[in-house]
Every structure is written in structure tokens, then in C-alpha cells.
């Protein structure tokens, strides 16, 4: 199904408000009825303006596979919230913009959400470069931002608390990945990273951990994106004779790297993030090219009751980490607004930790939490992506990882650890 259509559905789906035009339309309608038949005037029913929340996922570009699914997961939570009476007596509406996996386009879209739509929260930035560009707009305008970007630098920005991420940061990820690589008995690892904010910190941390575990990083390189071939880069990597090559990029470039490695007859292991080797990537490449590739992703908390609820809500057997993180953002933001009794970025910032950590009653969905908050009870939201406990700078405290291996064009679970 084309994503353009999906965006349209989410963006303008039947119940999208036209708040500024509505009263005038009602007036005209009423006046028209009076003029036509002198009938009773239309009764203008008082109704709160809908509460608009911003969604800025990449619907196109390298993140175009995850973005639309994330937007859908958020919409599913908001539908439940609306069915339960909305927030602060108002109906909640998601305003979806396309970040295009492109900082410049995302900044324009964020400006629209902040300045025109005036949303209290923007949920969904995906690429680290996009989040780095959008975050300053958010904290300057006191808009709350939730993200899956992994670069360490993001939570170190002076965001004054207006940012949380449910994705493990780079440091945590790189360390765990290196630990896993060493546990496979790999002696010589080479890392090829796309030019992105996460490239160097990941290389540095993985090198440290590999050394601690008795393995070795025999070389690293950072490559340019948007190239049609990486043959020379592959040659450089192969000269170090690695047992494993960690392809730390995005789908378009990792696809080319996998092809070029196959052509160069590289027989060692290949390791990549799951967002770089997706099921669509497997479909687009011959099986012999992807055979044996190991992928890693932050895992949803598959044992959590929140995960079971997300499965039912989305109607899919195994929601992935991105869908569950998006589920958690929509829930956290909704609960923080209800707790603050105020739909502002500052209200969300000051209350988000009051609803997701601490001694309150554990809840596993937004609706469940909203009911308890309405009774004046304290809650602790436990998410589908993990426990959703945040440090002072907005990082999650811990999370699980899922390792898959490609066999005959399909993913086979190696382990969740």
C-alpha cells in the first residue's frame, strides 16, 4: 500500500477537525436555513476545541519503513483515549507531518507544528540528524519531544527536560552489541559506519568493549551516504581480514554494501541494525547475498502485559520495537497531560516522570492510567517497549535486545538478551 495514501488517511481521516472554519460554517448554515425557510435557527452546540498533538515521523526517505507504522501505532492509542472520553474533556487529534528522514524538511515540518498548529508535543523523530535539528526548536518553544534516535549527543543537548527517548542510547547499544559479537567468538571485527552523529561514538564504545572481552576492532571507516557503490570502501575493510563486519548504516547504503561484500567474495559474518536490514531489504536482494546476516534491534518487552495490549490494539502478531515505542509515547504524553491537567509542553515535561516511574500503581495502557488518574491515584506506566523509566537527561535506564539471523531470505530468532 503506498505510504502517500496512508499519510492521507491518518492526516485527514474523517474526523480531522477544521476548528477555525467550523463556527463560521455553522453560522452560515444557520443563516441559510433562516433565510430559506424561516425555520428554527441551528443550535450551536458548545464544544471544546480538539487537542492537537504533533507526529513527526519519516513517512519517506530511509526511515520510510518505520515512520508510517509508528504513526499508526500512535493513532491506535489515541483512538482508545478518544473512545474513553479524550483528554481534559477534549477530543485528541494527531497532526501528522512527514520528516522525510531529512533534517531540513523535518525542521520545516516542525516549525509548522509548533508555530501554526501550536502542538504541546511532537512525537516521532527517527534519524539522529533529524532529532538534532528539530530538538532546539522544541525546547525554545517549550514543546515536548519524544524520539527513537540513538545518538548519545541528543540527550546531552541543553533540552531543559523537553526531550525523552525510549530508544537505548548509542553508548548502551554499542556496548551490548560488542559484548554479543565477542560472545560469538569473533576475533577480528571491522566497522563501517555511515556519516551520522552516531558513527564515531559507536565505533569508540564498541572498540572499548571488544578489547575488554578479548576481541579486537581491526579497523573502522566512515562512509558517505548517497553513493551508488562502495567497492573501494569494501576493499579497504577486506584488507584488514576481518571475521565480522559491522555495517552501521541505513537500509539504502547497507543494501549496496551487502551486494558489494558478496561480489568481493567476503565469507565472514555481517552484523547490522534491524532498521538497516528490514524484511523489505531481504525481499529486494537475492537470498545468497543476505544469507547469515545477523541483525540486532532494541527489543520490545515481549513479556510485558503492555505488549499484549499493543498486539491486540494493532492487530499484529509481533509489534516491533518502533511500534511499541510509538505506543508508549502516545500513552506517556496522554497520561502526562492528564496528570498536569494542562496540555502544554511544560506541563508534560514536569509530569511525565510522575506517571511512569515511582511507587504508583502499575498500569499498562493509557486508558487504564487515565481512569486511575481521574480517581486521584498515583500511577507508574510500564510500556510495551520496556519499563519506560528515564534518567534526568531523558535516557531510558535499561532495555532488551533481539538478535536475528537471516536464513533463506527470512529472519530467524537467535536470542533476546
Amino acid at each position: 500500500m503506498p505510504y502517500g495514501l496512508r499519510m492521507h488517511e491518518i492526516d485527514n481521516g474523517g474526523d480531522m477537525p477544521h476548528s477555525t472554519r467550523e463556527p463560521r460554517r455553522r453560522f452560515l448554515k444557520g443563516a441559510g436555513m433562516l433565510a430559506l425557510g424561516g425555520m428554527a435557527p441551528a443550535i450551536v452546540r458548545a464544544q471544546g476545541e480538539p487537542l492537537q498533538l504533533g507526529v513527526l515521523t519519516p513517512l519517506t526517505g530511509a526511515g520510510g519503513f518505520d515512520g508510517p507504522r509508528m504513526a499508526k501505532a500512535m493513532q491506535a492509542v489515541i483512538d482508545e483515549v478518544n473512545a474513553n472520553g479524550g483528554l481534559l474533556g477534549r477530543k485528541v487529534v494527531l497532526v501528522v507531518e512527514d520528516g522525510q528522514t531529512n533534517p531540513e524538511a523535518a525542521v520545516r515540518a516542525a516549525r509548522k507544528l509548533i508555530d501554526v498548529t501550536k502542538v504541546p508535543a511532537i512525537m516521532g523523530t527517527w534519524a539522529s540528524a533529524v532529532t538534532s535539528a528539530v530538538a532546539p526548536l522544541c525546547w525554545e518553544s517549550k514543546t515536548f519531544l519524544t524520539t527513537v534516535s540513538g545518538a548519545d549527543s541528543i540527550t546531552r543537548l541543553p533540552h531543559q527536560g523537553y526531550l525523552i527517548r525510549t530508544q537505548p542510547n548509542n553508548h548502551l547499544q554499542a556496548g551490548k552489541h560488542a559484548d554479543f559479537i565477542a560472545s560469538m567468538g569473533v576475533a577480528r571485527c571491522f566497522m563501517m559506519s555511515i556519516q551520522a552523529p552516531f558513527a564515531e561514538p559507536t565505533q569508540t564504545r564498541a572498540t572499548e568493549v571488544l578489547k575488554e572481552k578479548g576481541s579486537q576492532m581491526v579497523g573502522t571507516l566512515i562512509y558517505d551516504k548517497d553513493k551508488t557503490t562502495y567497492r573501494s570502501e569494501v576493499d579497504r575493510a577486506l584488507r584488514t581480514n576481518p571475521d565480522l563486519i559491522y555495517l552501521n548504516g541505513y537500509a539504502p547504503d547497507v543494501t549496496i554494501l551487502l551486494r558489494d561484500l558478496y561480489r568481493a567474495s567476503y565469507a565472514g559474518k555481517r552484523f547490522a541494525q534491524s532498521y538497516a536490514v528490514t524484511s523489505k531489504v531481504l525481499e529486494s536482494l537475492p537470498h545468497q547475498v543476505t544469507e547469515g546476516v545477523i541483525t540486532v534491534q532494541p527489543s520490545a518487552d515481549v513479556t510485558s502485559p503492555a505488549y499484549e495490549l499493543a498486539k491486540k490494539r494493532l492487530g499484529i502478531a509481533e509489534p516491533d520495537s518502533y511500534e511499541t515505542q510509538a505506543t508508549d509515547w502516545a500513552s506517556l504524553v496522554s497520561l502526562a497531560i492528564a496528570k498536569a491537567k494542562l496540555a502544554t509542553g511544560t506541563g508534560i515535561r514536569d509530569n511525565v516522570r510522575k506517571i511512569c516511574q515511582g511507587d504508583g500503581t502499575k498500569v499498562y495502557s493509557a486508558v487504564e492510567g487515565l481512569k486511575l488518574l481521574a480517581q486521584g491515584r498515583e500511577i507508574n506506566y510500564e510500556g510495551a517497549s520496556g519499563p519506560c523509566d528515564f534518567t534526568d537527561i531523558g535516557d531510558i535506564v535499561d532495555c532488551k535486545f533481539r538478535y536475528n539471523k537471516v536464513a533463506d531470505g527470512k529472519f530467524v530468532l537467535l536470542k533476546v538478551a
Partner: protein
Amino acid sequence: MPSLADVGQLLVNGVMAGTILAVPAIGLTAIYAVLRFPNFALASHATIGAFAGYVANARLGWPLLPSVAIAFIVAGGVGVITDETVLKRFRPAGYITTAIASIALTIALENVVRFVFGNELRGYELPIQRDWRIGAIRVGPQQVTNLAIAGVAMAALFGFLGFTRMGKAMRAVADNPMLAAIKGIDADTIGRIVNFVGMGLAGLGGMLIGLDTTIDPLTGFRSILSVFAAAVVGGLGSIPGAVIGALTVGIGEELCLLFLSPDYRSAVGFVAILVVLTLRPRGILGQRAY
């Protein structure tokens, strides 16, 4: 110290990359030579060509060469239609307005492709082969095929320009539109032909890029800056210049790896523009079409 084999491998890689780049660069420069504006809609036409070839190859099961021909024909056809319906109206407003309209057009067309095919990466139904090793140098069979297709396309174009009446008329309009008009050459017809050939080459180039990688709606957009760099370095408006410019950018981007980290590769094309234009403001071969 890099070995001779390393330099040789980089040179081979550079020639391969440059030759593929040359195909759409010729398209860009040919359109510029006749219509006098840089047509950035080339990016989306490269994508359209790549997808037309994909439909022929992966959906209809056609072999490589007919699929490549379809890429050329569909992109060329779309090029004529978009020029007639959109860009032609902008031309009286000047080349800057037309160039900007072409950027808008390319984004619109790219989204049409996205609407029809979605965002995911797609690959052609071609077996992937291991590289040949010739001494210390590695060469890919697919690259050699691409090189041959690009070479044949360029030879055909040069034959068309050099030996056919229409080709000569095209060069005449490019060199001196007023004189050509006095001689009774219809500039509109020539405009249509150059659009067909130029955008056809873009489509072919898009497919050649896709054969070596995968395709998605941004395939053309990702390469357009390098294509533009190649055309400018060679001399915008000069068709042999586009080939020389593409080889300069292609080989330059590879050889720079001897001294620079790979993440500076794209910068090389643009440094080449600055150096060449500083020394030769009209590009390596100037702006004579042929």
C-alpha cells in the same frame, strides 16, 4: 603508502562510476544546450526510468536489454509530456524560473512514483555474480555490462548528433538558435527531441544505477548533485564535456580515497567544480554542444 594495485583498483572503480554518471550527465547537458536551462527534473526522470525498467524486468519478466530500452523510452516519453505541459510555460519567464519549476516538477513526479510503488527498496530480477579477479584488480560482471550499455548509448548518441539530419539540426539550435530559425529549423520540434533523448538518457542512467544497487523513489534525487557536478565540470552544454566531466568526478572521487577518509568523497565533485571553474570558467570543454 598505497600500492600500485590499490591505485589501479581505484582507477577501475572510478571509470565504472564515471561512465554510469556520464549517461544522465549527457542528458542534462544536451537539454541545457538546446533549451538553455538546467533541468533538475532529470532526477525524477532517472527514477521513472529505473521503475519502468523494474516493471519490465521484475514484473513482466523481460530480460535486461529490452528492460533498459523501456527505461529509456518511458523516461523520454514522460520527459516530452512534462516539458510540453509544465516547463514550456515557464521558459518565457527566464531560465532561473524554469530551473526552479523543474525542481518543483521533480519533487512532484518523485511523489507520483512513491504513490504508485511505495517507499520500499526494490531490486531487479537479475542474478548477482561474484567479481572477476584480473591480477590484483577486481571487476564486477554487472559493472562491465553496465559499462557496455552506457558505452553503446553514448556511441549511438554521438552517431545521431554527427550523422543524422535531426542531430545536426539539434546542434545547430544549440549553437545559434536564431540562425537555425532563419534556416527553417523548428525549435519546438528540436526541443521535443532533445527532451526525449535527454530524459531517456536520464531514465537509462537511473536504471544503470539501480542495476548495481537497488531502487526507491529517491534513486534519481540521490545522484542528481553528482550528475550536475559532472556536467558543469565538463562544460554545461558540451556533450563530450559531460563525458569528460563525469569521468573526472568519478575517478576523482575514488582516487581521493588514497588521501582522504571515505566520508569526504562527495566533497571531491564539488571541489572539482570550484577548481575547474576558477581556472576555466566555461568548464573543461567550454559550452560548444559537440
